[in-house]
């Protein structure tokens, strides 16, 4: 009787012992790096999709022999985390999806100035006011639609048409996604707070369909469950690449319309970084032709280094588009943008 009880306990005992071994012995994968992380490893907070950035991180490690710990997450979450961490942030580098959240770090005095050779890799105007960050690639705000259900000539040319009755209940938005917040920040820079507020209130009272991310919008459009959605240009391209084809296409708004925005992804080095040379080398690595080619081919984004190319079916990068980014102002508008979005009830 007793023997059988004990034999039946073997499995759980083994499990518990395994767990305790894990605690005292080998530790969780990089858990053993806990103590050494700040000594030898470059820490990069990546507010971008892991699959798009990891190959470059691994290539950088292989080439330089340096160890990189990358923390992947959403840009907004990581920017908040760095602001909470302040001077004690373990991060050396922050790679963000847009100029708005990195602007909040500039406001907090958290970023160091980047050297001229890095700034000069990209066209003038795609860097922080005092060179606190530099653009890496760019994405365009577009309207996604289903070409099998809607003809291109039925689509509006301006985002201002979307607040009209014709589009009631037909427009998808991801209002708390960093890409929408950036778009609102740039609209504030271009049109002023009052016009932006009026547009947000107009779209909020036009029964928009709210999503948490861009791809869900494109997914719903492709399925025929949603007419149009405001998204970044590369989602439809990436999903088509993953699935062979997809019933979703992009249409840009008219040039000069507040809906036609080009947004750079951005990178900066923290003032508190203890690995400055490695951090700058990592940024240089991302601005190399080969890395820029990766972003164009695999992520379908605009490279910012000249001569690499343009995403399929998109207008080339030119001086007008870059001026249209109004990056000097956009970076300061995060708080105003999130407040206006919340006040419109778009949460």
């Amino acid at each position: 009787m007793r023997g059988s009880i004990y034999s039946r306990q073997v499995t759980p005992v083994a499990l518990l012992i395994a767990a305790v071994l894990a605690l005292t012995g080998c530790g969780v994968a990089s858990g053993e790096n806990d103590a050494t992380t700040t000594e030898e490893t470059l820490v990069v907070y990546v507010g971008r999709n892991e699959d798009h950035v990891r190959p470059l991180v691994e290539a950088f490690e292989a080439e330089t022999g340096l160890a990189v710990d990358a923390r992947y997450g959403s840009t907004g979450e990581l920017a908040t985390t760095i602001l909470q961490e302040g001077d004690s942030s373990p991060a050396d580098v922050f790679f963000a999806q847009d100029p708005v959240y990195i602007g909040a770090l500039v406001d907090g005095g958290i970023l160091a100035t980047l050297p001229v050779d890095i700034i000069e890799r990209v066209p003038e105007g795609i860097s922080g006011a005092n060179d606190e960050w530099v653009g890496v690639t760019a994405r365009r705000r577009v309207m996604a639609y289903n070409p099998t259900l809607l003809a291109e000539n039925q689509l509006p040319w301006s985002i201002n048409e979307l607040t009209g009755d014709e589009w009631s209940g037909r427009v998808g938005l991801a209002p708390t996604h960093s890409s929408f917040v950036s778009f609102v920040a740039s609209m504030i820079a271009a049109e002023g707070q009052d016009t932006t507020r009026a547009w947000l209130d107009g779209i909020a009272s036009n029964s928009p369909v709210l999503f948490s991310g861009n791809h869900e919008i494109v997914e719903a459009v492709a399925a025929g469950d949603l007419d149009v959605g405001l998204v970044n240009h590369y989602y439809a391209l990436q999903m088509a690449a993953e699935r062979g084809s997809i019933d979703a296409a992009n249409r840009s708004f008219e040039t000069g319309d507040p809906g036609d925005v080009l947004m750079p992804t951005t990178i900066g080095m923290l003032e508190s970084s203890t690995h400055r040379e490695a951090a700058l080398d990592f940024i240089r690595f991302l601005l190399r032709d080969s890395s820029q080619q990766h972003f164009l081919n695999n992520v379908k984004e605009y490279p910012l280094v000249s001569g690499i190319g343009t995403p399929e079916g998109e207008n080339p990068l030119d001086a007008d588009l870059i001026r249209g980014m109004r990056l000097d102002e956009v970076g300061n508008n995060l708080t105003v943008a999130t407040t206006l979005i919340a006040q419109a009830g778009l949460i």
Partner: protein
Amino acid sequence: MPRHVPWVALLAVTIAATLCLPPLAVVLIEAVTAGSANGIPASRLFELFSGTVVLIAIVTACTVLLGTTTALIVTRTDLPGRRVFSFLVMLPLALPAYLLALAFVGLGGGAGLASQLGALIGWGPAPAAHGLAAASLCLTIASLPIVHALVVTALNRLDPALEESARLVGDSPARVFVRVILPQLRTPIATAACIVSLYTLSDFGAVSVLRYDTFTRAVYSQFRGGVDLAPAFALSGVLISMAAVLIVLQAILSGPPMPVASRGRPPLTLRLTGTAKTVAFSVLGSVVLISLIAPLGTLGFWAVRGITAGVQPGPILAEASNTLQLALLAAAVTTLLAIPLALSSYRGTSRLGRIAETLPWITHSLPHLAIGLGFLVVSLALPPAFYQSTTMLILVYVAIFLPVAVGAQQVALRQIDPRLFEVSRMLGRGMWSTGLRVGVPLVWRAAMTGALLVAVLVSQELPATLLLRPTGTETLAIRVWGAVTEGQLTTGSIAAILLVALSVPLVAGHHRATLRVRQI
């Protein structure tokens, strides 16, 4: 232990207070000082509030009805295959709600798998999975195992003599259920309803994927969209009050302790015939179809489609290893730290014991994002070695999942006949010796069920892991969520299938251990 030893209660309160009070204090202080929620219009706040309450009411009612039904079928009828079904109904524990939600989205709508399959036999497109109906279905399915498990355990512990007497005096099975069984199930059902409602309140993954607006989703949106934490904390304050109301409701609805069978004896079973058998089969079959076959089939379809298209899933094996190690480590530490809490509170008489029991319930029931934010602030105030360390992450898991381990141990402790301890003491054994040689063997299996459940929950945990994991330690849950938010269905589904594969042995172990607990 037979009598309360004050130092056990003191140790328990120290553990509970050290782990749970700091993050709670941070959230409460920030919520009070934050003031307004970023000027969100009151009408919108009311919409979020009522949306949350409606969802909680529907999910709780549905899971209690359905979970009690499945539990009765597997414990009180002679339905063939009921043991297999009992396990299959528990298996969705291996599928976090956000995965179920993702699969439902892939099934419904114009391009959904269900619509494509339906078209083959001439059906119209399935409705797109979003909004209240989809969120209710998804969370009902996700929390059904909780109700099922609690009610099955309770039914197995009922003294069959009462039911037998009622049947002897000529009561119909339905009347026996209403007059004899149901009143005895009051406490477990109240507990299950409380757990399910708190779970629904704190879920953000599934409601985000299914686009249903709740308070927790709003907290997450505020956190994700802005860099100012004040609005997120202000909304968390509302969540804390809602959680408090639910916990108080549970205490009010709970009945007196049940009479427990002194000796395990199989209860009378109802012989099912004809229509009744068909109905019972269809209920269990539908549950298995919706909660297992459909979602796993959808994930499998995506995985195969993506792999055929040549998509690389990335370092998911390393992530699986991280997930398993963190889960087992957290389960071991949680179980060890739960021992004093269970010992000091299982009789429910000591005030210290009750404090030690309640505190972790509060951290458990709050949205993990809020608790995670609290811990983020706390760990930044500690020496730098703690920040984003494995140690800190494990402690966070302990703070969140302690009640699961404590609850499992309490169940076993309550079943022990106190006379066993008295006999041991009379035979000259000391307190320690009695605890080790009499208490531990009796509680061991129940503690294992708790530990395995903690391991499953930790492997699926998302918000706190996102905030506090060591940089470079990616887990499957993080990978799934990252892929889901970027629409990378291949990577997401492969990682998800791996996560489910890891959890299945843990759930199976939990299920076996649960069956054995009642054989003591």
